[in-house]
């Protein structure tokens, strides 16, 4: 009798472990720690906004990469090619609309930028579909071959981009209304950085909504944790993976447009350069975790900018240093995705 009462209590006991929110504190802690070091509040505001803008763009690009790994254990070292592709498409679209981009009217600028972004999203998504079919599908479950062939795919992709657009850097000027800065007291914040933060936040919220409120999102979150069980429940995870891969490629294309505008110049090597940052970000965040990727991307953006201002020599390896520190604290990344 006594044992059944105990069992009843045990079964009714509410779980007491709290969800892990500690990594959320990292961003404000990092930003506040940099405040006394930068010396002046206005410099700090400028640097923080620059960091957040950079982080948001990196997040847009990296979010697809982390989900692709989470769902199918596929490490796509060719992700950078979609960034380059998106950026070059933007040079072509915006180059043909200089009348609109040079106009002072914000509306006309936006009407020029939207088709550029749309083209990047659609073409990068379509190329992503082909990339998955031709390059990734034959090497499922073979990590070494995946690394080799996705790197190879990237090299081929970059050379093809050179065939179409040439090997030279192409300027990608900001539309007229996005140039210059807004002044908040003494602090100057570039308009485009503000826009990048807003767009990045919008994409994060949209992604958050899809992942937390829709059944497809639920399937993605479940698939990242236990692929086999999702299949046992009757869902074809292969199709889900293709969808995520295409969406991830499309977002990388969009991120490429934003990165190109941020740098105001586009080179065939840009994707490869950002690739390194992407892997740092998804390792910091915990492979497969979108929330971790978001925090990781913003941290990398902030650290790059603070370090670039405070100690330019440290800036060369500041992101690696950040990754090492985070991994010493949490070897699986900020949010480890509970797998198998």
């Amino acid at each position, binding site marked *: 009798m006594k044992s059944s009462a*105990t069992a009843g209590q045990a079964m009714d006991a509410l779980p007491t472990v709290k969800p892990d929110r500690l990594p959320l504190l990292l961003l404000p802690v990092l930003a506040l720690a940099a405040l006394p070091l930068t010396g002046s509040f206005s410099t700090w505001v400028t640097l923080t906004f620059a960091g957040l803008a950079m982080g948001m763009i990196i997040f847009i690009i990296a979010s697809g990469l982390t989900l692709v790994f989470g769902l199918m254990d596929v490490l796509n070292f060719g992700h950078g090619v979609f960034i380059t592709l998106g950026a070059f498409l933007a040079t072509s679209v915006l180059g043909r609309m200089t009348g609109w981009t040079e106009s002072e009217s914000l509306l006309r600028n936006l009407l020029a930028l939207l088709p550029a972004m749309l083209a990047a999203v659609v073409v990068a998504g379509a190329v992503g579909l082909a990339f998955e079919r031709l390059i990734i599908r034959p090497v499922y479950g073979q990590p070494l071959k995946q690394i080799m062939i996705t790197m190879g795919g990237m090299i081929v992709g970059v050379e093809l981009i050179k065939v179409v657009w040439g090997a030279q850097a192409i300027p990608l000027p900001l539309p007229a209304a996005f140039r210059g800065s807004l002044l908040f007291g003494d602090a100057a914040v570039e308009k485009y950085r503000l826009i990048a933060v807003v767009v990045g936040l919008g994409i994060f919220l949209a992604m958050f909504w899809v992942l937390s409120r829709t059944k497809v999102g639920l399937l993605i979150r479940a698939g990242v944790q236990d692929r086999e069980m999702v299949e*046992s429940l009757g869902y*074809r995870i292969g199709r889900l993976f293709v969808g995520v891969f295409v969406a991830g490629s499309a977002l990388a294309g969009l991120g490429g447009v934003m990165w190109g505008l941020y740098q105001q110049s586009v080179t065939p090597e840009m994707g490869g350069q950002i690739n390194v940052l992407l892997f740092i970000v998804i390792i910091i965040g915990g492979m497969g975790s979108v929330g971790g990727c978001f925090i990781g991307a913003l941290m990398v953006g902030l650290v790059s900018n603070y370090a670039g201002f405070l100690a330019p020599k440290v800036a060369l390896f500041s992101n690696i240093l950040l990754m090492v520190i985070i991994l010493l604290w949490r070897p699986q990344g900020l949010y480890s995705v509970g797998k198998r």
Partner: protein
Amino acid sequence: MNTPLLKLDGVHTHIGAYHILHGVDLEVAQGELTVLLGRNGAGKTTTLRTIMGLWHASSGRVQFDGADITACATPEIAHRGLSYVPENMGIFADLSVAENMLLAARGARRLKDIDPKRLDWVFGLFPALKRFWQHPAGLLSGGQKQMVAVARAIIEPRKLLLVDEPSKGLAPAIIQNMVEAFRELKRSDTTILLVEQNFNFARQLGDQVAVMDGGRVVHAGGMAALAADEGLQQQLLGLSLAAHQ
């Protein structure tokens, strides 16, 4: 015995270089609870995984409801009406209990699409689920997780339920709870194939029993007959123990 809902004919399964199943013959009758007994490594879990298409048979045939499903992919097998509770329970730890259930209810896009009568029936079997509805499933105790795993498998009507060691690691009082839940499931005419090592648990529930050893079924028959025959138990289950030493 009624017509078999599930029939395995000489099923061999290899995992990499290892030959695990050596010609399994097994029948699961419609509307009955069949228990698969045997020591560790006898091939019980591999049998369930082969039925579910998670590993494919290298030879032999798996027939379900009159169709050959040997070569079918796992999602298709699930769509034909099998549901599966794996040994590790396959709980999505980061999702809430409600979200775990929503995934299992293939026909529902939102929680409110889940058939309320069916949900009430499931809550009747496992009242704890209702309390933990919004809690992350990963925070539940082992017994509570097992309840979620079984509830997930029955949230929509299925033809056959495959359950791998539901009593594993559970406290005796919770095991008794599980026995009651399976009894209620039997009353609702669900066909079940249950893998167990706990003979006491198996004896309370089983209609039929199959004993596995060395990747084969070495005995199949009524549970009542095995439960009554200590010599046979000694021979089948004791023999396995002797082989184990």
